């Protein structure tokens, strides 16, 4: 690889680490640590491997066929099933976007002390302006590099001196004897947060926009494996902080600001500030990803012009879609609904919608007409089918568990 390619790869990976964590990861990883200590550690690598497998697949489809996920969904599953997948993904996207924007406003409020609703309006207008005038690669870099402040949780996790024996045992899959329903609810939430569909939509559409070709398959694989794996370390760090600070002191972290307090405990004021700034960039970056994902899906399904690299006027219906999504998300969070609660619903509903995203990807990645010689190999198919089974089980169990556990409150 040339130095320029290596530099791009390194920058992409840095941005992926910073951009890996969203509000769903923040809420579920910390709450899981605060409730079950290190017992749910094993779920994080399972979720990270799942998103690696399917992102690599969707990136490969984009590179070889030039088609993003929803192009493939529509072509492979027909109009009816495609429409179902579209509606499900748009509902989940909108809920997630609302939660992320609420998270942006909360982070700004913790930094500035200004009223929440004013900051919500500022966040929406600010996002719209940034999306309108800033080139995408700069948006990704700004939020990705800013999100690197989240590494403060990794430093905090080490400094807290966790019980490494218990930490290691947490990687052995098991079912907790103490409140197994709640344990399963958190396991599903963690998987749903790690494998949230918008990441795959965004990733594959980005591949098409970056004009990936067969020559970029190595870059696709490296981005997916290294970026997501290193990003997953942040999830581990959040769970350690949850266990070492909140479980130890009997605290159930129900507010976004509480999570930042987990970094203050070992690192003081600078830890707190870095955590809040990191949360701001992480949820801000995720807002960009989700709003674009929503616009991609609709535009690809209906065959509209789409693209972040086009001037907004060059793809007017695509632009109008993300603007409308922003306004709708604002309409939801301005009611005063708790963004953390919206996050929990969004993650659980996304778990239900997972098969609608991942089944078509697996089908297309095995289609010789699309993929030629680059169809799935044996390993990709074994992992793909295994994860499909996991995803189907999750989809069936998610809502009953949400009801049984009273959205994780029991």
């Amino acid at each position, binding site marked *: 690889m040339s130095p320029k390619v290596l530099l791009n790869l390194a920058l992409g990976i840095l941005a992926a680490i910073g951009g890996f964590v969203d509000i769903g990861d923040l809420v579920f990883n910390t709450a899981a640590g605060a409730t079950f200590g290190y017992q749910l550690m094993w779920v994080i690598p399972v979720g990270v491997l799942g998103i690696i497998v399917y992102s690599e697949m969707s990136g490969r489809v984009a590179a070889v066929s030039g088609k993003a996920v929803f192009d493939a969904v529509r072509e492979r599953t027909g109009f009816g099933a495609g429409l179902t997948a579209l509606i499900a993904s748009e509902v989940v996207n909108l809920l997630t976007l609302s939660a992320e924007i609420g998270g942006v406003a909360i982070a700004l409020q913790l*930094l500035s002390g200004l009223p929440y609703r004013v900051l919500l309006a500022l966040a929406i207008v600010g996002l719209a302006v940034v999306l309108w005038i800033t080139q995408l690669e700069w948006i990704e870099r700004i939020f990705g590099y800013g999100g690197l402040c989240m590494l403060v949780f990794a430093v905090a996790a080490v400094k807290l001196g966790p019980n490494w024996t218990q930490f290691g045992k947490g990687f052995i899959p098991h079912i907790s004897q103490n409140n197994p329903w709640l344990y399963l609810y958190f396991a599903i939430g963690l998987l749903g947060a790690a494998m949230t569909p918008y990441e795959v939509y965004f990733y594959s559409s980005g591949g098409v926009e970056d004009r990936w070709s067969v020559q970029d398959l190595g870059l696709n694989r490296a981005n997916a494996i290294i970026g997501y794996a290193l990003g997953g370390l942040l999830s581990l760090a959040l769970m350690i902080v949850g266990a070492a600070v909140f479980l130890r*002191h009997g*605290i159930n972290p129900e507010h976004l*600001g509480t999570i930042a307090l987990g970094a*203050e405990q070992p690192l003081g*004021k600078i830890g707190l500030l870095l955590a809040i700034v990191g949360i701001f960039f992480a949820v801000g970056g995720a807002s960009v990803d989700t709003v674009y994902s929503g616009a991609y899906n609709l535009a690809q399904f209906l065959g509209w012009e789409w693209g972040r690299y086009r001037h907004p006027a060059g793809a007017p219906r695509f632009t109008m879609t993300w603007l409308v999504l922003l306004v709708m998300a604002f309409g939801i969070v301005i009611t005063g609904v708790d963004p953390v609660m919206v996050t929990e619903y969004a993650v659980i509903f996304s778990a239900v919608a997972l098969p609608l995203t991942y089944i078509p990807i697996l089908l297309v990645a095995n289609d010789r007409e699309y993929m030629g010689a680059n169809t799935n190999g044996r390993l990709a198919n074994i992992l793909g089918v295994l994860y499909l089974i996991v995803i189907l089980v999750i989809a069936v169990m998610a809502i009953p568990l*949400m009801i049984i556990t009273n*959205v994780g409150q029991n």
Partner: protein
Amino acid sequence: MRWVGLFLAMLALTGCNGGTVGRHALTNDAATIDSINCEAWLLSGAVARNRVTTYYAREQAEELAIQAGNFADALAHRPTAAGLEPRVRAKAKDASKLASRLWRLHDRPTDRDGARTLAATFKQAGSCS
């Protein structure tokens, strides 16, 4: 359609904080009030040692105060299972005291001595470790 309606109704009820307070709900609510006390202990301790910003202290104290106040209102007015009323109403008073202490922290986020005193109170009230 009937099943869809039933499902949506169950979904709507999920997470609601209404209805009669039974033993299980009281245990859950008491645990949450202890959790708020312990977070307030960490927060006020951090204020006392000048380890948080003024804005953070004020906003986080407000969030917790609102949450505690909601519990105080709900536990003071919701119907209770037979024999539980005295305990539920006592818990409502605990939540109300917690809320007013948090509002004090919210109003004086730079008062380090006051925060130190409050921290001790929160720790004791929540039996925090």
